[in-house]
């Protein structure tokens, strides 16, 4: 019984980080219609950047700040240099998938060349456990959960109330409508891509102390974020949230009961089952 609850807690913790990253992937698809294959590699980028900044001898707050700023700039750059030029072409959505796939492998191998093939890890943010109603809760997990929830909550509030957030939603819902009211489409695309890069990379920082950083570790995350997004409905932020927690818990349960190798199958089975019944995902709408 205690074990089960431990497992669920771990599922919820991971789910919160997955949710954060899936929100980023879903957002960038919903707004810019780019299916970003490099998303997993940007997750890894967050880990490596943080690792590098630690190497400079900075503490956690400064490292996080520097990493997030670098991620933001990297996102802007990627959108500007390799995605925007494609937009003029008729089959650009397909080309965007190919170009981000190329970018993903480029980045992964860049990490391998720069940092070597061996795992890197970040120092633990908080050590120790918290005794609560007979359960041992790792403070690290609690902090991760707290940060992920805060980031997501803050992001939701930003989308719903801030002018720029509203502009992002407007572009997602009707691009021509957004242009009519004078929203600069290109700048929103760039900003959205950059924000999603930040969310991916932030996920990388949060999970790095737990799961380590490897050059190709992003693919697992990409597939997971992808499944969450598809399950929740492409472009639906709310759907991604539910799907992330659901899959986080399923993952923890399967891993506990049947072993880690079955996790990916479970994800895939859930995805396929859902898509067969509802091709547009749980909360998605076509078009």
């Amino acid at each position: 019984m205690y074990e089960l609850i431990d497992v669920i807690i771990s599922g919820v913790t991971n789910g919160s980080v997955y949710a954060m990253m899936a929100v980023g992937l879903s957002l960038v698809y919903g707004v810019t219609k780019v299916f970003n294959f490099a998303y997993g590699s940007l997750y890894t980028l967050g880990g490596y950047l943080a690792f590098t900044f630690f190497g400079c001898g900075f503490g956690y707050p400064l490292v996080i700040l520097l990493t997030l700023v670098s991620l933001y700039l990297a996102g802007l750059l990627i959108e500007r240099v390799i995605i925007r030029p494609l937009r003029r072409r008729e089959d650009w959505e397909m080309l965007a998938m190919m170009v981000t796939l190329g970018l993903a492998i480029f980045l992964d191998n860049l990490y391998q060349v720069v940092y070597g093939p061996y795992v890197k890890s970040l120092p633990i943010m908080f050590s120790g456990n918290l005794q609560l109603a007979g359960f041992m809760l790792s403070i690290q997990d609690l902090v991760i959960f707290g940060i992920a929830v805060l980031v997501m909550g803050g992001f939701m509030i930003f989308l719903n109330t801030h002018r720029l957030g509203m502009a992002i939603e407007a572009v997602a819902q009707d691009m021509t409508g957004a242009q009519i009211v004078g929203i600069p489409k290109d700048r929103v695309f760039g900003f959205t891509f950059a924000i999603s890069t930040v969310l991916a990379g932030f996920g990388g920082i949060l999970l790095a102390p737990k799961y380590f950083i490897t050059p190709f570790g992003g693919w697992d995350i990409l597939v997971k974020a992808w499944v969450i997004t598809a399950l929740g409905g492409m472009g639906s932020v709310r759907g991604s949230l539910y799907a992330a927690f659901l899959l986080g818990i399923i993952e923890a349960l399967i891993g506990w009961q049947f072993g880690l190798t079955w996790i990916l199958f479970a994800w895939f089975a859930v995805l396929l089952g859902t898509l067969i019944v509802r091709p547009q995902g749980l909360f998605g709408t076509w078009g």
Partner: protein
Amino acid sequence: MIEIERIDVFYGEFHVLKNVSLNVAEKDLTILTGPNGHGKSTLLKAICGLQPVCSGRIRFAGKDITRLSPERRVEKGIVYIAENRHLFPQMSVLKNLKLGAYNKNARRDEAANLAAVFELFPRLKERKKQPASTLSGGEARMLAFARGLMSNARFLAIDEPSLGLAPNLRMNVFNAIREVHKRELTILLVEQNIPKIAELADRIHLLEEGEMTFSGDRETALAQDTIKQAFLGM
């Protein structure tokens, strides 16, 4: 206020606007009419920057805006009210209106404009919490119109505001246009329902097969059979 000089617009291989010129004087209400699919909406979109122009120039208040981005045009006060509305379906009516005031010139007047719009369309005030997708056709059109008014426009390009509306709603929209026109806004109105609206017009233009086939003031236009023939087809 708006001077369009010999513009050409293509959709792929299809020549939509052929050497079209049009002037709209400040504070005038100009009607652009003609059969469907002959380039009226395209002309409005070209003015608002949603449709690239192949050759020719567009000037606004004396300045060349031919290559300006749509958002810069909105800032200058050129506002398009689309026939197929382009609302943000999952957002509330209020949010749609607030987004209308997105450009930096309209931002500071948001509250005043909102009050004015609600006065003009009390119906929208009743429904301000509702998502735009739940509005009826007529209400959605009102919202599109109201959203345009939120942008602090100096020039409104309105695309067939009466289309698909029941007669009473149609009168509502026309009254709103009349009201807005009184506030000394310059308006270019695409409309097929001429007799209703003609009394407001300063000038009427006829666009057929992408070419301007008639331009003149109200009296001359209404005396002409070509106008009736062109859009009634008889």
